[in-house]
């Protein structure tokens, strides 16, 4: 029963977390996963993904999911 967490770019450096695992709990949301990583409130411009698709903090997390947190993208 676990959830894989990934962080990228400035957020990865600030949290000091590239990849980690969290225990999955019933009713868990992406916001709950954030709170398990950091005592700070989620940054205003925080982006989240669930299983490689954009998601938001209210969205439910299923066992085995991959959840990612990252700042605004700057490719191209």
């Amino acid at each position: 029963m676990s959830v894989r967490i990934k962080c990228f770019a400035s957020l990865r450096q600030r949290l000091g977390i590239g990849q980690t695992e969290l225990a999955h709990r019933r009713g868990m949301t992406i916001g709950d996963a954030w709170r398990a990583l950091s005592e700070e409130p989620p940054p205003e411009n925080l982006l989240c993904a669930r299983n490689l698709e954009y998601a938001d903090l209210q969205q439910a997390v299923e066992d085995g999911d991959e959840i990612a947190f990252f700042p605004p993208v700057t490719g191209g």
Partner: protein
Amino acid sequence: MKVEIRARAFAPWEELAEHQAHLPPGSYGACAAFVGSMRDFNEGERVTAMTLEHYAGMTERQLRQLTGDAARRHGLLDALVVHRVGALQPNEPIVLVAAWSAHRAAAFAACAEIMESLKSRATFWKKESTPGGERWVEKNTPGANIE
């Protein structure tokens, strides 16, 4: 339709010519292309190197989705997207987008739309090395509106 992430420097116009050589001759009347490359100057400072981080897996998925969406919406005959990751030197290409269609309006609109979607949705992050140290690029410059 081809979407690729590259860890090494690439020659965009040669990639484009090579890809185009496989399209049915005489089928397309228009190709619009865009290449973004690394400048040696940004926001008032000299930039000596750049690192492009990305979210492997999600990036490819997002690029395929946004390119496919634009291709369908504009009735493209083909599209090509190549994006660099890793350590870059000034002048190296970062991104190539090309769109082929029967007439020019669709090719222009789709190429610009793919670039704008890529800039806002594809999971890449730029870190610049300047004489004052390293800094993450916080946001992209504004894009073009094409109708």
